[in-house]
């Protein structure tokens, strides 16, 4: 990997060494009714041989579209202008026959949807072989042998056998590896990796990034990494390009962009990311509003409506991308010189809201009433296989003995990979029925004692839920007012009370009373999630269950919703059960955290203690896999990359369920290992309110400490 020193010494030259030169690229989609969606509006950059460039932006920023333009894979009706030269050859307007010869050979792309990107009816081996044989005249046998080598290279275990398997027999992470194998099959000069993280768990994501690094090393290809997450590229990219509303708004070396951002949008993005290395509960930097419509762009700077620094000129003229200082760092802002001279940092530009504290939080934990208590919860269900010939092939131990409690005014973060049982736990609680084993107590009432639908319905008032996907959680056929009224009508509120309460609720979550008559489709994702939160609060519940409430939102909008949740908790003394796979969000919002693995809690305790000294090897791995938007820390951080996928919950390993992937297990002696194989470890206290279920638990710090002062780096 290149070090910071090397990066700084490189000067951009109008380069012969550039493998890819993009010049004034415009991409426009015609739409119904003649309006045009201008997805990319003037993008220029150069990519040197072997360089890694990160393109960062939110959905709709044009980052993926510009790469598809390079691949020549945009729909026929798309209007593309400008120039893209690959190794001197102009790609725009090239005949498809010629373009097909370049695609997959000189320029490859790894798409973001691992689940749907492989043809379902062919074996993965056949698909890799196909990629090889399109461009070479390898014999079938040679190609097959090479395909197995490639699958091995990207870390697929037993590649010879697995090559004969079909895509649906692979996990998302494994499919992503196959995609990478196909992309690097012909040693491309340019490798485009589109948004690797969205569909994958943190661990798998970390694995994939490693594979990408390997691929880059093996092929020497220049890499373009497209992402919405500034954390991901911090440690990997040499340079970073930030895009907003189809335009590049900041371009520079990684250090320049992270340590001295000169465009307020970049600053906002950096501030809005919940950071693992933050200390304690704190508000995030919210960027108000949402990205503009590409079909209907405002005049002037497209970021103006959301920018705290906007002045008159911003409404009139769109700022060009110009050098800030030195040729390498460029930003598109009318006030970049001011920012530069005054040395404004994120905190100077974006005001951070104050967070209150609920009165109940002043009491010590033991004295607060219990909002939710779960003891020995078990949920097993039959595993069926086959669509045509359905049959039971086993029992999924989705939740297998889980204990935790939440006190009033407290937030418990429940984290783990997908498939660990966290969602099943949450659904079991919401069902309010007698669990297969164990007990669930909501607001002091045991669900085993709820004998009729009436009692259950009464208890539902105390327990409400906010779902992950704001798109799916509101009925598109109902106006927002009706959405909010539904719980109240169900519980027999009278009309007048309901009307008043709707207004109140909308105000509570930062929307206007006038919005009650509008349909969910008319709102942005962030606003819809606010409506979802308002609905959950309608019945004044004591406990709100949040199922990944921000993971479907754009980065810049996320912070606002997290801040809102924290504010509401303080104002209304709510308790939250916050289910997430993202440990950095939990870090910001939760008081306590429980880490789940294969249906059991492996570590639980107060956030500060668990994050500072994670004691279960799994927690350590999870924490180390989360990127921090700080290039220096990222480059020096040691990553614990877990091996393989989550074992099937239908067939968990004996003894400690984590031992098959455990990094600590590998360091043990045979005698010590035997204990892990034979016995499931109990939760062992690791400190006050902190315990871990590991026979050999031992705190290891995996998060670099927050530096007191952020270092400022400038190219000299």
């Amino acid at each position, binding site marked *: 990997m290149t070090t910071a020193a090397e990066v700084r010494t490189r000067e951009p030259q109008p380069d012969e060494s550039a493998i890819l030169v993009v010049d004034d690229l415009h991409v426009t989609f015609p739409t119904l009714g003649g309006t045009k969606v201008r997805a990319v509006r003037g993008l220029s950059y150069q990519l040197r041989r072997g360089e890694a460039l990160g393109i960062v932006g939110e959905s709709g920023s044009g980052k993926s579209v510009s790469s598809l333009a390079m*691949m020549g*894979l945009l729909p026929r009706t798309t209007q593309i202008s400008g120039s893209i030269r690959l190794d001197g050859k102009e790609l725009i307007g090239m005949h*498809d*026959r010629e373009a*097909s*010869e*370049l*695609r*997959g*050979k000189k320029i*490859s*792309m790894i*798409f973001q*949807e691992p689940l*749907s*990107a*492989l*043809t*379902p*009816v062919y074996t993965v081996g056949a698909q890799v072989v*196909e*990629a090889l044989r*399109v*461009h070479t005249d390898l014999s079938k046998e040679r190609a097959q042998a090479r395909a197995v080598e490639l699958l091995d290279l990207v870390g697929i275990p037993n590649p010879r056998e697995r090559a004969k398997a*079909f895509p*649906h*027999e692979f996990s998302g992470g494994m499919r992503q590896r196959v*995609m990478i194998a*196909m*992309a690097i099959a012909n040693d491309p000069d340019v490798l485009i990796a589109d948004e690797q993280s969205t569909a994958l768990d943190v661990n798998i994501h970390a694995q994939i990034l490693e594979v990408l690094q390997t691929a880059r090393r093996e092929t020497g290809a220049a890499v373009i990494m497209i992402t919405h997450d500034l954390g991901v590229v911090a440690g990997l990219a040499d340079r970073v390009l930030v895009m907003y509303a189809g335009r590049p708004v900041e371009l520079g070396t990684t250090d320049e962009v992270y340590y001295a951002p000169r465009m307020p949008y970049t600053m906002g993005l950096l501030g809005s990311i919940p950071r693992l290395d933050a200390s304690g509960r704190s508000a995030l930097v919210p960027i108000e509003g949402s990205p503009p419509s590409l079909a209907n762009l405002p005049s002037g700077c497209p970021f103006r409506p959301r920018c705290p620094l906007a002045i008159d000129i911003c409404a009139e003229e769109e700022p060009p991308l110009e050098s800030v200082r030195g040729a390498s760092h460029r930003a598109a802002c009318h006030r970049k010189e001011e920012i530069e001279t005054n040395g404004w940092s994120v905190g100077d530009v974006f005001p951070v809201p104050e967070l209150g504290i609920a009165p109940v939080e002043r009491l010590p934990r033991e004295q607060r009433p219990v909002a939710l208590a779960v003891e020995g919860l078990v949920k097993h269900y039959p595993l069926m*296989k*086959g*669509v*045509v*010939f*359905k*049959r039971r092939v086993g029992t999924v131990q989705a939740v297998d003995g889980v204990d935790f409690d939440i006190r009033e005014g407290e937030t418990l973060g429940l984290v783990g990979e997908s498939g660990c049982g966290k969602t099943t736990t949450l659904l079991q609680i919401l069902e309010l029925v007698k669990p297969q084993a164990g007990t669930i107590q909501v607001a002091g009432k045991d669900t085993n004692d709820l004998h009729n639908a009436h009692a259950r319905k009464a208890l539902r008032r105390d327990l409400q839920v906010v779902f992950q996907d704001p798109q799916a959680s509101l009925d598109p056929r109902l106006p927002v007012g009706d959405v909010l009224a539904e719980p109240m009508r169900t519980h027999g509120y009278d009309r007048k009370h309901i009307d008043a309460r709707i207004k109140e609720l909308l105000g509570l979550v930062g929307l206007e009373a006038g919005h009650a008559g509008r349909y969910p489709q008319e709102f942005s994702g962030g606003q819809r999630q606010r409506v979802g939160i308002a609905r959950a609060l309608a019945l004044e519940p004591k406990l709100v269950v949040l199922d990944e409430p921000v993971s479907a939102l754009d980065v810049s909008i996320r912070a606002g919703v997290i801040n809102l949740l924290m504010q509401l908790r303080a104002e209304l003394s709510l308790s939250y059960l916050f289910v997430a796979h993202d440990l950095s969000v939990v870090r910001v919002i939760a008081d306590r955290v429980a880490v789940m693995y294969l249906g059991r809690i492996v570590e639980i305790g107060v956030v500060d203690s668990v994050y500072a000294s994670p004691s279960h090897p799994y927690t350590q791995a999870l924490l180390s896999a989360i990127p921090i938007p700080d290039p220096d820390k990222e480059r020096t951080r040691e990553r614990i990359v877990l091996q393989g996928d989550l074992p099937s919950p239908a067939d968990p390993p004996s003894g400690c369920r984590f031992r098959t992937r455990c990094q600590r297990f590998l360091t043990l002696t045979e005698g010590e290992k035997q204990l892990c194989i034979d016995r499931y470890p109990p939760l062992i206290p690791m400190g006050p309110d902190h315990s871990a279920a590991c026979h050999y638990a031992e705190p290891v710090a995996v998060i670099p400490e927050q530096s007191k002062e952020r270092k400022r780096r400038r190219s000299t």
Partner: protein
Amino acid sequence: MGKYLVRRLINYVVLVFIATSLAYLLAAVSLNPREHFQGRNPPVPVTTQDRILSAYNINDKTPVLDRYGHWLDDLVHGNLGRDFDGGYVGANLSRRMWVSGQLLLIGTILGGLVGVGAGAWAAVRHKRVADYSLTQGAFFILSCPTFVIAILLQVGATRLNDAVGHRLISFSGQSDPALQGGFFSHLGDRLDHLILPTITLMLVGAAGLMLYQRAAMLDVLGSDYVRTARAKGLRRRTALTKHALRTALIPSMTIFTFSFATIFVGAIFTEVIFGWHGMGEWFVQTIQGNDTNGVAAVTAVTAVLILIASFLQDIIVALLDPRVRVG
């Protein structure tokens, strides 16, 4: 899997039994075989009528449940009963199924090929002239009831025959009974009689399948894996046939399998209008002829064939789609 199959088979047997019994009971109650004796000259004495009807187990003076019991008893012994003319339903059935099979085989296969081909082609030429005309054409055909198509074809064939001055296309019956000649002239005659019904069946089959295939193909064309195939460097045509069409064939092949497996059920309109003595024609004749036992047999055969067809459908899906196979 064995247990699953057995359960499914039992369910099938129960379904067929109930469907057939229902049809038998409805027919026994509502059809009136005695009509056959009406207007006979000299009038048939009632006792004679009763004797004949009772011999065939279709006497309306016998309580319906007794007749049903009798019929069941026969059924268990492999006897499907007799029709009014004394013919055995079982023998009729096997002869007619064979006729229907002969009639439908070519038309169904041609319909399948044309439908899939046209549908895929239309999808690839999405929103162009070819797509537009194929789609509208399919809509037009689907809007023509089969009997309208068949009669139109007959009118057309008559005009053609008149124009050329001799019988170029025959459209009534399965063959010319008066024909003298060897194997080849008989074969030619058969094929000649097959032309119009086959075109009818092909048009109707192809139009429906075409729209279906087109929709399936359009779904697949925008999919990520076709884009992946293109990103590998496959030419458009290769990506379309090898990746898109292969996957889009799965749903339309299941539909095709169904129609293929049910060719022995016959085609009602085509058979009646073109004078083929297959199952479809029998279907109409049993009801018009107040033939209770025949109705029950038609229902049973239809039910069994539909179940076989849906079972074959499942097998075809499993063959074509690795995602559905028992893993």
